């Protein structure tokens, strides 16, 4: 029996907002079962290698592009909403299937604008490295407001794409989003989306850093690598779109 009368009278709070923590984030986990920075970076390397292998398949067999995109989308939804614990098996499959999709779509862009693929790859990794330097050095500091701002912007972009997708069934679409629309307005929108996608990388770095600090379970290394891959793939696609608009001028 506690000597604190308030505790005796009302008991301990059951409000999940006060008691909720991350499952398995206890410090009682053995060291070798905790998430580390090394592990997350190595797993990102594995996912990137799988993505490149998939891209080689998609480049040679473009017919696989759309089935792979759907499979990748389903795997991403399963990983995010159903089973983070199984990210070690879903994330590699996601990287492979998205790689096949990226290989096909890159071939399409490459046929329109020669040399665009290597430019997009170089810029994507260039942004990744430069933002990592900015994050590690403390030049960019992600805060709760920063996360809200990026979340709201991503929500807006998602709605824009969704409306454009639905409109495409009726024979129209938002022309500003078309990869061949070379107006300054269209280029500006694409550049803004590239900026948002780039800043999302900072949130992924912070997620991995904090996860390693808190000693989350080992499977979160795969989840951290997976979230980084999702952002990288989005960034690559947006850079491809931006470059094609610029080259259309």
């Amino acid at each position, binding site marked *: 029996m506690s*000597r*604190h009368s308030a505790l005796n009278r009302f008991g301990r709070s059951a409000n999940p907002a006060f008691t*909720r*923590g*991350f499952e398995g*984030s206890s410090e009682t986990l053995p060291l070798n079962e905790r998430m580390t*920075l*090394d592990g*997350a*970076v190595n797993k*990102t*390397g594995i996912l*990137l290698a799988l993505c490149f292998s998939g891209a080689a398949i998609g480049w040679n067999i473009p017919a696989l592009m759309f089935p792979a995109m759907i499979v990748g989308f389903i795997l991403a939804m399963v990983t995010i909403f159903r089973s983070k614990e199984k990210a070690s098996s879903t994330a590699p499959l996601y990287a492979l299937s998205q790689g096949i999709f990226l290989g096909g779509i890159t071939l399409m862009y490459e046929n329109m604008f020669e*040399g665009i693929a*290597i*430019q997009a*790859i*170089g*810029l*994507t*990794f*260039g942004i*990744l*490295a*430069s933002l*990592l*330097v900015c*994050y*590690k*050095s*403390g030049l960019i*500091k*992600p*805060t*709760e407001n*920063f*996360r809200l701002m990026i979340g709201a912007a991503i929500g807006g972009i998602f709605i824009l794409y969704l409306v454009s997708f639905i409109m495409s069934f009726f024979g129209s679409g938002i022309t500003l989003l078309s990869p061949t629309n070379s107006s300054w307005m269209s280029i500006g929108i694409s550049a803004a989306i590239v900026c948002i996608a780039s800043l999302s990388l900072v949130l992924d*770095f*912070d*997620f991995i*850093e*904090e*996860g390693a*600090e*808190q000693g*989350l379970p080992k499977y979160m290394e795969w989840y951290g690598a997976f979230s980084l891959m999702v952002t990288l793939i989005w960034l690559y696609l947006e850079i491809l779109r931006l470059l094609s608009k610029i080259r259309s001028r």
Partner: protein
Amino acid sequence: MNTIFFSLLAIFSLFIFMNLGKIKASKKQTDRDNRINRFGSKRGTVNQKQNRSKIIEGEAEEINDEAEK
């Protein structure tokens, strides 16, 4: 020339990512009051930890004037 430049950029950037990614972020980044707390942890900044350590844990006892005398 274009291809070589962007290929080198990609390889160099990947090299930076694979090496720098494994190093812990600077104190400037990790010891902040306004960090995102995703996992509901009780982690705090250096200042918060120092303040927390000033709290003396134990059982409160009622003190009345007669007991003091």
